[in-house]
Every structure is written in C-alpha cells, then in structure tokens.
C-alpha cells in the first residue's frame, strides 16, 4: 500500500505561490496538495473553491488502468490495459475497465464529480488477486478483485469472479468517494453508513447503465456473483433486506430492515455489512416514493449529504436528518422529495426531522492527521 503523504507540511502560502507562478505540472501538484490539505482540516468550503480552480488545470477524463496480480498478493501487479486500449481476451480485465468507466460516468454526468477525489484521480484496478479469493475491496488507493472459487471443483463453487457485477465495482469505487468526502469511520453505525452509501451508488451505477426506473430495478447488490450452487439472488437486497440468500452453506442473509432489528455484534467491524440494510431500505423507499430514475433526485439528495454534510462519525439518526434537510434545501420545504426522505427513514423506524450526533471535524493539521490514522 502506498504511503499517504502528509500534505500539511508545506505551508499554504508556499503552495499558493506555486499554484500561481509554477509550470502547468507544478500548478496541478500544488492545487492537488491544497485540496487534500483542506480536506484533512475539514475545511470543505476551502476544498470546494480549490477544486473549482483545479478544474481549470485538470481535465475531466477517465484514467483507467487495469493490472493482473496473476493469483499472487503483490499489488498492483502487471499492467494489462490502459485508458483507451482495446478490449483484451481476459473478461475480468474488461469488466474492471468498463464498469469503473460506468461508475466514473455516473458521478461525472449526474453529479459533476471528476473521479473518486473530484480531482481526476486515476482509477486503478487489480484482477486475479490471490487464488480462490472470493472477495473484492478498496485499499485506499485502488480496487482489488478476486476470482471467487475458480480453484474448486464446479460443484463446490459458490462465488464467481467479483468483477462480474457492475454494482460491486461501483460499490468499491464509492468507498473511495466516501474516503475523500465524509470519510465515515468503518465501525458500527458510521461504518454501516459507509457500506450503505457504497451499495446505494453501486446500485445507481447499474440502474443508470440500464436506464431503469426505480420501480423496475432489482435493487439486488451482487446479482450474478453467486453460482447456481447457491440458493440466492445476490449478496444483499436493498428492497427487502434479509432476503437475498438462504443457503445451507452460506446461511441466511442477516440484514435487518428496521432499527428494531439492529444487530449489536463485534464481528464485521460492528456489523457494518449487516446493519447497512437499514439505511439501504431507507434509500429504496425514498427513491421509489419519488419515482422516476433513482439517480436524479434520491441519488442527488444522498450525494449532496455525503459530500457536504455527513461527518466521519455520523450515525443513522444524523444521516436521516441531513438527508431530510438536504432534500428540503434542494427541492423545497415540504416538497414531495423531502416528504419521501422522511417516509424512507420512517419506514426503518427513524424520525428524520430530529437531529442526530456527529461531532464537528477536528481543526488543525495534527488532530486531522491523527483522526485520519485512526489514532483518536
């Protein structure tokens, strides 16, 4: 994993000089550092103004690169496809390439976001990670995908390769977006929100690709990942949490759909993949109440909340309040959209008109750095 640079060591006045007087390449690096530094200090307004400046320097184009780990552990692996290259024979490579492009397109076209960091960050993927790796993850810098159960006899295979599902790719990339925005701590309720936002935008990438109306989408996360040996539709259901699978080997989908069924556990970082069912269902209800395409209004409310309002330790109540507030600001107090957001959270047992907890982001370079490293 790459070392995370400490952007705040070079003072802002020096960076500003470089951004004004440097070469094009120097300007880009300086602005990038200033954006990152502002984000670390929790100064979202400064970061936004700098991003506006950076847009004049950094072009809004996709920069995708796919690597092959060749069933090993070393990242990123061997370069196999770059931006603009023709498709290759390896399906996993083409899926990682195409679906990260689809994810970029949704965020750029609908939300005017230039890549994961809103600053043209390149989209790196590694496929064929390890042997028999039935998983995918975002490591802070890139996406990593396994091939599922390719090493087992066909009758024992439960998982296909993890690039097969477009929403899985969207899910992983959205972890990157969250990292650069609210940076929700990956533990308990804030972690479940982190997971939920990834499922929400993963599903929206799929729905956008298919140009589906909210009512016509399947709202299944990871449809196509499970082999025919598994009794299940996918990994999670946003429409009906707890019903995605019920299998003698995998067990039953453990997700709750209401706060009354919230799961208190020490596993899975406090149940981040389990309790995400609650905010997932809230989004599903909101989107179907509003109708039309989910990405246009419900997705916009959720995106703006993630980008401008959520804190690293926001809980479900706080998120509910912020989405309700954002819906009112975006579409009007008492609007259909705001009522839909309230209804969505009410369906899971949360009154969205009530504020929740979420401590202010720390100010100052050292507190921000310590928070980012998880040492506070």
């Amino acid at each position, binding site marked *: 994993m790459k070392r995370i640079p400490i952007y705040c060591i070079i003072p802002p006045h020096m960076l500003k000089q470089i951004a004004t007087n440097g070469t094009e390449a120097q300007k880009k690096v300086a602005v990038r550092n200033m954006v990152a530094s502002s984000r670390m200090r929790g100064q979202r307004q400064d970061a936004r103004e700098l991003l506006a400046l950076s847009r004049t320097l950094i072009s809004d184009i996709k920069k995708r690169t796919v690597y092959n780990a060749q069933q090993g552990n070393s990242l990123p692996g061997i370069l196999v496809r770059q931006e603009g290259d023709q498709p290759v024979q390896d399906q996993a490579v083409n899926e990682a390439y195409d679906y990260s492009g689809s994810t970029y397109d949704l965020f750029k076209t609908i939300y005017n976001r230039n890549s994961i960091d809103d600053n043209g960050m390149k989209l790196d993927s590694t496929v064929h990670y390890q042997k028999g790796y039935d998983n995918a993850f975002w490591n802070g810098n890139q996406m990593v995908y396994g091939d599922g159960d390719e090493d087992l006899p066909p009758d024992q295979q439960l998982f296909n390769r993890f690039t097969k599902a477009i929403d899985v790719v969207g899910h992983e990339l959205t972890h990157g977006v969250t990292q650069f925005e609210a940076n929700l701590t990956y533990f308990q309720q804030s972690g479940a929100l982190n997971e939920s936002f990834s499922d929400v935008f993963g599903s929206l990438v799929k729905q956008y690709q298919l140009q589906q109306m909210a009512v016509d989408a399947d709202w299944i996360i990871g449809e196509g990942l499970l082999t025919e040996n598994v009794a299940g539709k996918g990994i999670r259901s946003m429409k009906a949490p707890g019903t995605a699978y019920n299998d003698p080997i995998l067990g039953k989908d453990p997700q709750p759909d209401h706060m009354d069924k919230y799961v208190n556990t020490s596993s899975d970082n406090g149940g981040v993949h389990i309790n995400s069912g609650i905010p997932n269902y809230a989004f599903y209800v909101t989107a179907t109440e509003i109708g039309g395409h989910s990405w246009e209004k419900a997705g916009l409310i959720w995106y703006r909340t993630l980008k401008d309002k959520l804190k690293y330790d926001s809980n479900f109540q706080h998120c509910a309040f912020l989405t309700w507030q954002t819906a009112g600001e975006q579409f009007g107090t008492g609007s259909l959209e705001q009522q839909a957001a309230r209804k969505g959270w009410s369906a899971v047992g949360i009154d969205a008109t009530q504020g929740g907890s979420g401590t202010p982001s720390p100010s100052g370079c050292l507190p921000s750095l310590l928070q980012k*490293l998880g040492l506070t």
Partner: protein
Amino acid sequence: MNIIYERSGGFMGTTTSYTFNLEDLPHEEAEKLIALIDQVNFHSLPENLEMPQNIPDQFSYTITVESREWTHTIRTSDATAPQEIQPLVETLNSLSRSQRKSDA
C-alpha cells in the same frame, strides 16, 4: 497440533470459523501446514498485524496454533498480512473453503 482459523468481514461481512486437527488431515496437507508455520516462526509473530483504520471490504483473519509446546494467536488482514505469512493464510483459506461442502 490444532489450527483455529477464523475469517471475517469481506464484501459479504460474514464470519466463518474452522478448527483443523492436523492428525485428521491428509498427510501431505498436514506436512505443508507444519512447514508454513515453522517457516514464519509463528509463535514469535506479533499478535496484532492489523492497521488502526479498517479498510472497506477486506477480510480479517484470526489464526490460533495450538502445539504441544505453545499456543499463539495472530490477527491480520488482507492489506496488512506480511508477505511471509500470506501462503499460510491462503492455504487455510483454501482448506476451509473445500470443507464447506462436506460440512453441509
């Protein structure tokens, strides 16, 4: 020798746990595991090989080895497992997954 292998997290967020008694495994597999444990001086590895900030969707692993002379547990994850223990983690992963069908 017993090995208790637990894997949690991942995209699905599920936890699976297996106990392997090496006397019950095929000889070749048992020898391979013993060799992997010896190679890394398992009993002297740090207990905590995880990062303070969790990486989304990665697997976390808790591995306990109980030999006649010592018992030791380590916790690690996909992004933090040192290169030298990754063959052990992969072997245990492969073994546990091939056990899934027979336990059903």
